[in-house]
């Protein structure tokens, strides 16, 4: 891990502990799910829609 010396600080120990936890097989954290492709399309679709409506309204107004 961090550095190659013999001294392992409190932070290195805590980092290793946390990495062991999150990389364990079967570690269940809903945040670590991938966002779906359709949700990303929806996200950018909403953004484009808002921008286009604004441009149309500005041009029309």
């Amino acid at each position, binding site marked *: 891990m*961090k550095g*190659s010396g013999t001294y392992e600080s409190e932070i290195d120990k805590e980092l290793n502990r946390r990495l062991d936890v*999150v990389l364990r097989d079967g570690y269940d954290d809903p945040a670590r799910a991938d*966002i779906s492709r359709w949700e990303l399309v929806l996200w950018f679709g909403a953004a484009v829609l808002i921008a286009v409506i604004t441009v149309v309204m500005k041009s029309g*107004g």
Partner: protein
Amino acid sequence: MAMSETNFTGASSEYGTLPVLKEERQLGLFDHSLVNIGIAVATWAFLLGGTTAMFVGAWDGIAAIIIGNIIGVSIVSVSVCLGTSKYGVEQFTFARSVFGRVGVLLLVCIFLAIYGVGWSSVLSIMFGRAISEVTNSTMATGIGPNDIGVTWLAMVAIVVSWVLLWKGPTAVKWLNRIVGPGKLILCAGILLLLFGEKSWSTIAAAPALQPFDDPKTNFMVAVEINLAASFGWWPILGNISRFTKTPRAALWPNLVGIFAAAVVGETIGLLAALSLGNFDPTAWMIPLGGAVIGCSVLLFIGLANITAIVSIFYGMCLAMRQAGGRYFENIPWGILTGALFIPVIVVSFFPAQVYDKFFVFLAWTALGFAPLSGVTAVDYILLRRGRVNTRDLYSDAPEGDYAFWGGVNWIAFVALFVGGIVYYALFNPMSLTAHNALFNWISASVPSCLVAGLVHYVLTKRFLRGSRTGGYPA
């Protein structure tokens, strides 16, 4: 008190760069939205709206605010929120996967120091001007907008922000539960006062404060200012979203909390500036609401500014810890944060140069953050397909995935440089004038972001695909 000692060093997720565990994730859709509202409806939103009013009137200004914010926020959110949320990793540690271990250090020194110190100085000077308006009104102190009294008051904001920062993101979360909704009430109050005095048709007919000759250039400069502001969320959003509970909670609150809240705040700033003929929010409140209401509003704005300074500095301090490695990790949180406020104190001695010219500073930051957003979004979403090696993010070993060449991914920096060149070829951030007629149609930030992302994609595919360097999938 072993627990508190641990919490005030880097050996925790909140005050350090370590991965967040499931039980430490505090932000769902609702709380993340409130945190974002708290930072988006700061007085910087009023100041941005006021600056927009320098170039365009009400209708064009509202359109520029919406277009600039939706483009920037949608790209930046994908760029920094998804990866930091999924892996629970601090944003600048995560950025090692793009720029390399040493590359991130360059990034922190160049971008973040300028950005964090610049914005915090603007906000603390605004605090100073707001409170001096109050003391001028109630105690006849006679402090001018660029007097030393403004600087002393700015230092009060810095000290209070430091104490709050010491308490960490939990303190900010609880403060924002009050300040966030309070600022929305404030917005409604300003609108009521504004339309109590003047009709919509009068405000809509008000001319821009200091426009250029060409209406098309004025509109695109207004869009560009708002693009710059929205791309400027890059260093902040990832370190908040790393505490979110789901990917959905990491992404969508940016639409509600950052985009919508910023649009509301900036539009109010735009209308108030056009109505009162002054871009500076601290000069609006007493003429608008009278002494009692005006002073109350200014005091609340001062408090709101402090939450924004804390949010900026939280991200900056984590980045410094990440960049400083073992030495910074072992420095107590209170001392580290206090040390980083020193340059803000120095800059707050120059209110006229910093505050009154803030849009120049804003345009320069876009030259960096627009390509940065393009590169980081393309790297995580398209090139890595949402996968990083968590263990190697923290590794300094030369055989790690993110060691690149001497700790620097030069490909990402070439892409940043090309993006910056594209920006400057289109727009002069010093004079806010177009370098190229194309600017009036495509802005400078958007092509800069797209070109940087494209260059990063092409060069990475050409030189790094399937190789051990960089850990990109085949």
